[in-house]
């Protein structure tokens, strides 16, 4: 009887496992077909000269060892684009702090919070290209921003290129990205037990102390999530830069993802894949570093 029950239990477990695989299958099939296999192929191509153009061929591409990677690692403009991407990351913590302040404000002021959450989220639901065109108009010579600058400083500045381009893009990035952060942080803030704040109040803690000791640790998982996705997104930022930059290859405007796009359009897939692999590796390293910091933080907490 016991044996039969055991057998039945084992059988049920197998059935459960099968069901588990069945439920996961759509996602796994999609990931395999459209992510893992293309990633593997791209990695393989990054060691070949597959592509078209001078020195390339379509049907008889050959293995060219690390030539593509040598090109990537000696490309000063690519290095500069990585620096630009790093500068672009400055907007992530700034945006997060603004989002945290707004989310805290919304939690503490329930009246109209739904309306404000909708308003904050509007930039997120607009396509990045739409936002980029709106901001390009704002930043143009006869746009609102330059009119304002001209009224104060009696001169216009070029916000679509040159030294002011990256600060202008950071401002735009913060504006277009904080909507999601506000919603995520708002949801997390609502999950923090109110009793903790009450206990802290009884112990005599002030508002700032409560914010640092209760609110921040309470939303830390979300903060890390925003940082990871934000930094990764900043390194892959492309569409809005492509639209906004007056000259995408200028030192002030170049972004790493543009190299992959441009080489694909040029049908030079091998070299484009190498740039993509290197960019992916850099983002992975940043992700791992952030994960390590997060674990240490959690451990200390």
């Amino acid at each position, binding site marked *: 009887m016991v044996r039969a029950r055991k057998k039945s239990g084992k059988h049920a477990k197998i059935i459960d496992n099968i069901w588990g695989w069945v439920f996961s299958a759509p996602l796994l099939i999609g990931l395999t077909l459209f992510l893992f296999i293309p990633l593997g192929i791209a990695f393989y191509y990054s060691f070949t000269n597959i592509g078209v153009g001078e020195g390339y061929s379509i049907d008889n591409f050959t293995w060219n060892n690390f030539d593509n990677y040598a090109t990537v690692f000696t490309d000063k403009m690519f290095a500069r684009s990585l620096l630009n991407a790093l500068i672009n990351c400055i907007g992530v913590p700034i945006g997060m702090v603004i989002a945290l302040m707004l989310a805290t404000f919304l939690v503490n002021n329930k009246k109209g919070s739904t309306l404000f959450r909708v308003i904050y989220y509007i930039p997120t639901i607009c396509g990045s290209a739409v936002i980029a065109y709106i901001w390009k108009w704002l930043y143009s010579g006869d746009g609102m921003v330059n009119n304002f600058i001209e009224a104060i400083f009696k001169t216009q500045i070029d916000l679509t290129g*040159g030294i002011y381009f990256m600060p202008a893009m950071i401002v735009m990035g913060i504006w277009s990205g904080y909507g999601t952060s506000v919603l995520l942080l708002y949801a997390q803030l609502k999950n923090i037990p109110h009793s903790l704040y009450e206990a802290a109040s009884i112990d005599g803690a002030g508002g700032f102390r409560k914010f640092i000791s209760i609110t921040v640790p309470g939303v830390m998982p979300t903060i890390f999530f925003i940082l990871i996705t934000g930094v990764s997104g900043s390194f892959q930022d492309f569409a809005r830069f492509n639209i906004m930059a007056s000259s995408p290859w200028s030192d002030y405007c170049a972004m790493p993802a543009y190299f992959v796009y441009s080489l694909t359009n040029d049908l030079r897939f091998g070299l484009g894949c190498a740039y993509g692999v290197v960019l992916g590796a850099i983002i992975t390293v940043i992700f791992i570093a952030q994960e390590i910091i997060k674990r240490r933080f959690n451990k200390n907490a």
Partner: protein
Amino acid sequence: MKKAKFLSLIACLFMLTGCYDSYRFQFISYPSVDNPDGDISTNVISVGNSQTSEDDPESGGGGDSVYDKIFAKYDALPWEYNGGQTSITMAHWNDNGVAVETAVVNALLKGFNHRYPEIQVKVTYYPDYEGSYGTNLYAGTACDVILVPDGAFTKWGATGRLKDLQSLIDSSEILNTETIFDTALTRYQLNPVTKRAGSGNQLALPKDIGPQVMYYNRDIIDDLNEYASKNGLSAIDYPPNDRIMTMTEATNWWIKVKDYSRAAGYGSNFYPVTGIGPEGLVWSAGGDFLNANRDGFPGDTKGLEIGYKYIVDAYYDYEILPHRNVIGDKTGCSFFLEKSCASFISGRSDVSSLRGSKINWDIAYVPSFDNGEYGVSNANHAKNTFSGSVGYAIYSGVQATKLEAAWKLVEYIASKEGQEILSATGYQIPVYEDLAKDPDVIQREIDGGLSEESYMIFVESAASQSYGLWQYRASIEWKEKTYDKFSENLLHSDANIRKNYPVTSFLNDVRNEIGRYL
């Protein structure tokens, strides 16, 4: 429990179907030859189902229509096709607005279906066509007939997936490529060994040729002359339409327009001209951007120095060109239409926009350097700028049963009848020099508001203006990552940065970096 699992499975399958559909949608956005129906905007066009009866020459309703006149003119040609009833696919761009493209293609296909009613053409319009359609070619999923912008021709040709048309051209009784503008025909030739354009296999035939001219606003000149006469100043003449102005003449003209317009209250955001590029300046000053083999920096940089020096001076010394911060995303034409400039340099395609406006405009040749001015001693005065063009090619993987039909379409577009229909749309001039000078074509241009002299500027410019830098090599990155990149500081709005970065330093930077991209 079992019921819950069953329902979950159904939900899962539903999701899977949804996933499949979403992926399928991505696939069908880019149709293959085997699946021509899977597209985003397909029009099945044939005579009788896409035009009104009034326009339809088959209906007999428009006895003296433009179509009938054109058809009658070429009825004697052997419009033969033996491939039977078939349908072919055609890839097209919608970069200039799908409505305009559709109108032009419909006009063309109306003529095509009149000659070849057995062949149905399914046209698909693609966004970001020039940037992305090369991957379709590469992947072997291209349409039977492909629009080939000259900017993409070299790299698309290098895929080996464009059919060599030479034998078909040689056996054609419809085409006579002898009188096609050389500048239009040779840009679709590719050397199979060097993969350079300009000579070699004929992989496409031109649909159009878009020479550049200088458009100017006659009313503004008249207004400034009224101001001049009131203030005892010398008048501004209209630019000549019988010769190319020298840069000295043109600069004086633009400066005079600037001075008068500012004095007359047009404001500091009004400019005499937009659209001056370095190409024509460098070429006409006797220089070039690469060496003769196009595999290195040129040995003689005098033309480059003169050309780029002029651009810098035009912005900051003569103050005749608007900085990019002023013009922003606007085209020269839209800047001109809002009366922010007196003249602009651009291609033929802007004629349609200007004809629809209330501006009293005319055209002149694009000015260029001549010997004895600005230190030029080796001038190429006629090479004042480049022209643009698009052509049509046949995908090399076209099914054998559809090859004749595909060729008939490409042949028709490049034929004199096809060209005359296209020119009648008002968007282009014919690619045949003799047809461009045909009295019927000239009369249509006059009816459209251009004088014969002005129209001939387009024709003469088409004969002399060749392809642009984009066709020097398969990739344009040598220009974008050197000349364009370093010109950022050369033309910087900060005077201190410009002062520390003269043209010689700019060219040294280009020289040092360009080898990486060649």
